[in-house]
């Protein structure tokens, strides 16, 4: 086994930023807005780095698809402990149409090219909330998948994954090579401190285009409109308990 793990990291609008819809409802405002690594991708990187620290795997490769600024996200991954990065350059209209299908095609092509033993992705991105890339990548490669992982253990040439599912927890054992998607409770990602960022400057980021990997980026989806969620109705204040009971009865809740 190559001992190489590919980790996909996505540059998204920072989780703490208030999202604003463009006046023409064609999308959301991204210019000048703070971006950072998708929180679930941070968890994915942390897991890969932990596996390397336990000497269970040999190399962590961070991959990001997007414009020039995606390199900042890769730098953060390198500061967290990844060994090298791959920036797949996607810009303009292609970037606007970039979704799980295109990214999973890129990840699948890279997995073959880099002879990856494991792919770890975040379970979903906080901007589109698709929760599809991991699953699609596994399908394209015909690899087993352990999604919503809250625990990952390498056991020889198999991976034991504890999955968070609606009913509770499910433990599965899958063969490698495999795709794993990280859930919130998998681990606690380390902070990329300034000294680590400085050290990571020496690490290499390779540049390539989707065409180099033979990937077709055409999207089958078209965004028609983006709207804000409906405003919350203002609450009603009541004076007495009797009023409260009366109002609740009116609303039909009691």
């Amino acid at each position, binding site marked *: 086994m190559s001992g190489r793990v590919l980790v996909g990291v996505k540059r998204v609008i920072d989780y703490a930023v208030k999202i604003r819809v463009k006046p023409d409802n064609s999308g959301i405002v991204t210019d000048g807005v703070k971006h950072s690594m998708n929180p679930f991708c941070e968890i994915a990187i942390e897991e890969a780095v932990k596996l390397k620290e336990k000497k269970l795997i040999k190399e962590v490769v961070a991959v990001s698809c997007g414009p020039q600024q995606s390199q900042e996200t890769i730098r953060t991954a390198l500061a967290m402990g990844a060994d090298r990065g791959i920036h797949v350059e996607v810009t303009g209209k292609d970037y606007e149409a970039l979704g799980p299908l295109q990214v999973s095609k890129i990840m699948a092509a890279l997995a073959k090219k880099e002879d990856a033993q494991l792919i770890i992705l975040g379970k979903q991105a906080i901007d589109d909330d698709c929760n599809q890339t991991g699953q699609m990548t596994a399908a394209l490669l015909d690899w087993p998948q352990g999604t919503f992982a809250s625990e990952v253990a390498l056991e020889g040439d198999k991976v034991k994954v504890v999955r968070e599912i609606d009913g509770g927890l499910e433990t599965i054992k899958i063969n490698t090579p495999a795709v794993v998607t990280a859930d*919130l409770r998998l681990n606690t990602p380390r902070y990329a401190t*300034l000294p680590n960022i400085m050290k990571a400057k020496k690490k290499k980021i390779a540049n390539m285009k989707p065409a180099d990997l033979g990937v077709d980026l055409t999207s089958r989806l078209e965004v028609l409109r983006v709207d804000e969620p409906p405003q919350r109705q203002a609450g009603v204040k009541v004076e007495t308990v009797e009023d409260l009971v009366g109002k609740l009865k009116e609303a039909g809740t009691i």
Partner: protein
Amino acid sequence: MLGWSEGGQRRGDVSLTYHRLNIPSTTRLVRVKGHLVSDMANPLRGEVIRLYKNLLYLGREYPQGSAYFRERLKSAFMKNKDVTDPEKIKKLVARGDFVIKELEALYFLRKYRAMKKRYYEPEK
């Protein structure tokens, strides 16, 4: 600062400086503005500057804003600028390292709680 040498000395004359200043050759000499100076007085200078830079970097994500953080960081360091006792400096640097850990924990908890609230059902 002890051990100022004559300005503009060539690098090869470092050993002469030890001899001339009558200081042990184990003392670290650094070049400050062309002069060779003993680093004994503030060997912790580098550490303090490093701590300041690290805290400043962390402050960019501070909930009340990076400008707010920067003001307080600067005044906290300025308050102690005349401390010379290495033991005291080491203690202050250790406190700074502790603040770094607290900030990292703060940032993690904020993010974790936000994600938990957005993506998971509240526990009954």
